[in-house]
């Protein structure tokens, strides 16, 4: 899918036909400040705002930005956590798509001591 091949936020929003994202303090990204092992970086995305239909986790400097995409129903809280690979230190974004079409994001910088994309 095109979204998973996007290399920048602009490409990603275009691939999904979304509005330009705006930064919001209500979207929180949780993760370590420094990750020793880039192969397993615990990441969480959460928001207190109602009406989130989709949440995406992006790692800016990975070969492809989009790591995971979650579609919520009304029966779950808009909060997920998972573990991702990071090739190098990078900004991590959580992008929330709201029911009314707004696109909001929060971000956090994570430093990686050992990259997770080498082999």
């Amino acid at each position, binding site marked *: 899918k095109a979204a998973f091949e996007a290399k920048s936020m602009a490409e990603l929003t275009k691939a999904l036909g979304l509005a330009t994202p705006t930064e919001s303090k209500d979207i929180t990204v949780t993760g370590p400040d420094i990750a020793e092992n880039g*192969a397993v970086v*615990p990441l969480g995305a959460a928001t207190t705002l109602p009406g989130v239909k989709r949440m995406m986790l992006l790692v800016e400097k990975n070969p492809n930005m989009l790591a*995971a995409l979650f*579609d919520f129903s009304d*029966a*779950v809280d808009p909060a997920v*956590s998972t*573990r991702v690979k990071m090739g190098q230190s990078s900004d991590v974004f959580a992008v929330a798509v709201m029911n009314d079409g707004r696109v909001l994001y929060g971000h956090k910088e994570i430093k990686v001591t050992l990259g997770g994309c080498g082999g």
Partner: protein
Amino acid sequence: MRIRAQAAGDKATVRVLMSHEMETGQRKDASGKVIPAWFIQDVTAKHNDKVVMTAQWGPAVSKNPFMQFVVKGAKAGDKISITWVDNRGDTRTDEATVS
């Protein structure tokens, strides 16, 4: 796949640990050949047979993926089932009971 669902109040926290290689398609083997990508693409979570969340993943999700989410209105005894499909078309479904 290991699923643990714990009720607290009117919500249940579900933690899922899947067993999967999650090969990115970027690594090379000893002879320099690219190891083909092999990763979970789609995940579906159901609460008592009703889909509550779906996810699409790329190869950047870690090996043996972990996922945590919160289901509203779930109580002890309810069923949570998780299904994944990988990019080779393999699929697996497991079920757990909320405790």
